[in-house]
């Protein structure tokens, strides 16, 4: 169906790496990354231009825009949002904001094809837990359930390897002190049953794949928890949100006909200046 083909441009500037990708539907056309963490403002348009050229497209060919809304670095995230929302407005095209956790979840799933392919299909979902270091000694995470294989047109279906799976978020987002993370993980597992607060009653025989950028700061805490409970597996490689996975999230949102626009950064905590208003 020709009118279903959508060119997607995604910018992720929420971390020290600036990642920009162009996709056609779920297929990646080009992706470029700049690791010069303090120079997003300087590099963003040049990188955007090069990514478009590599995909042999111009800005006018883009049908859908996507951007990482965070949680992430405050200033970095705003650079990407400012550029994307202005581009989308001028090009008169829809734009979608994606939560960092969603991008990590897709990224971790895609990067761990072997892990994913072992579980679904035997009534055992695989669980993916992107876990972010959000400073102030806190970690921010949520859970995603990857269930049985789906046909490729399923609105929540992502391709991993040569198969397609349904990915859905389970429960809410959690903001936990790093010292309480181990307790939280242990509390989820009683005799091999996983209980995700706010999720369904429990998972038997499931495994949780933990990934995200939390390993550099809290690698030991997580490794300790994982060594005590063999239901946890670790992905230490997926440490930044890549724009190619952002584009998959954007594609899924566009396909589900979610309302576009209204791009406002996601912050994990309420901002209280000077420790509160003094009278």
């Amino acid at each position, binding site marked *: 169906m020709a009118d279903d083909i959508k060119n997607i441009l995604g910018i992720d500037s929420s971390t020290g790496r600036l990642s920009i990708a162009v996709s056609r539907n779920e297929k990646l056309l080009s992706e470029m990354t700049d690791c010069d963490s303090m*120079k997003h*403002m*300087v*590099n*963003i*348009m*040049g990188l*955007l*231009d*090069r990514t478009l050229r590599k995909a042999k497209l111009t*800005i006018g060919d883009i049908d859908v825009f996507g951007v990482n809304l965070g949680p992430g670095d*405050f*200033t970095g995230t*705003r*650079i990407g*949002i*400012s*550029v*994307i*929302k*202005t*581009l989308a*407005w*001028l*090009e008169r095209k829809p734009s979608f904001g994606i939560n960092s956790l969603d991008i990590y979840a897709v990224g971790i799933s895609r990067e761990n094809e072997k892990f994913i392919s072992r579980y679904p299909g035997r009534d055992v979902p695989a669980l993916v837990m992107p876990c972010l270091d959000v400073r102030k000694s806190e970690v921010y995470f949520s859970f995603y359930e990857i269930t049985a294989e789906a046909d490729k047109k399923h609105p929540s279906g992502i391709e991993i390897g040569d198969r397609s799976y349904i990915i859905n978020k389970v429960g809410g987002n959690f903001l936990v002190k790093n010292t309480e993370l181990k307790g939280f993980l242990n509390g989820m597992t009683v005799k091999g049953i996983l209980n995700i607060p706010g999720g369904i009653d429990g998972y038997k025989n499931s495994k949780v794949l933990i990934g995200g950028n939390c390993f550099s700061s809290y690698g030991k805490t997580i490794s300790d928890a994982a060594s005590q409970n063999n239901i946890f597996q670790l992905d230490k490689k997926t440490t930044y949100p890549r724009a190619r996975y952002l584009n998959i999230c954007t594609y899924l949102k566009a396909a589900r006909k979610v309302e576009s626009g209204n791009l*406002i*950064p996601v912050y994990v905590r309420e*901002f209280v*200046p*000077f420790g509160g*208003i003094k009278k």
Partner: protein
Amino acid sequence: MDIDKEIINKGKIDKGKYTKYNFMNIIKNGDRKDIYILGIETSCDDTCAAVVRNGSEVLSSIVSSQDEIHGKYGGVVPEIASRKHIEVIEMVINEAIQKSGIDFGKINAVSVTNRPGLIGSLLVGVGAAKAVSFSANIPLIAVNHLEAHLYSNILENPDMGGGFIGLIVSGGHTSLYLVDNGWNIKEIGHTVDDAAGEAYDKIARYLGLGYPGGPLIDALSRKGDSSYIDFPKPMIDSGDFNFSFSGLKTALIYRTKKDKTLMSEKNISGLAASFQRSVVEVLTEKTLKAARRFGVKKILVSGGVAANSELRKEFLRKGGERNIEIYIPPLYLCMDNAAMVGCLGHHRYIDGRFNDLKVDVYSRSDI
């Protein structure tokens, strides 16, 4: 910091990989087509966009103020400012285009403040301006906020010309500039501590009046006797053109601590009027001295504090006495606005001075 290095050589078209400009023909052919500049300004707490025709006609000037939000804290909170900018930026630009009544395709260039200011705030405006430049394939012009303030009066008096002393006085800046006939700008003085507007805000907060402090103290002063307390007039005879308002603020605080009745309802207007008189006296005297020293006959006052009724009155009175023309733009051009950014952008545009899309933002910068 040598910002000018980033400005692409005068008159040369950037043949780099970022943009392909095709507008030079317009100038070369001597075609007298109208030039439309989109201005964007987000250096502090106001999100502003404007469309300026031919460098002097303001077709639209939109200002989305955050005063109410920052009022709770008695001053601008940088993190809140950038959070609010990012929420409204494209809506403000869109409104400026809509209100201007012109088609977006007519815009010749986008001009944006990239220095000096709050980094988090500047990034939002410059990011949007880069996207506009990239998408519409028009040149990007990054300008200095303070220089734009000096250009604000051109919008009112297109024939004003150079050869004047410029006083930029606001919540963030208090600086004196010598602008020669060729519009070469030289800073001759600046505040060594608080800006005048900052002192107003801090005093208003101390007296529990609210935010922004300028208009509140100004209103209160009109009811009071300005000779009630003889406050110091800091650096009035310093021999240079620098300012200082921190000590005046401290003087007021010490006086009220010694004598609590000064803050009573009966006396507070006298207190405010006396404080205001000191500020106004220093600003007017030093600016007029600068005009005499450099032998110029014109003074331009801009920035948020130029809205102060006493400052306007005193400048006009003293200017009249000493035969010096005083230019104070109307309120909407004194405060932070994007029309002045568009005006300066126009002059850059006709000079062929553009920036490439690598341009960065700077918290501090001289003109």
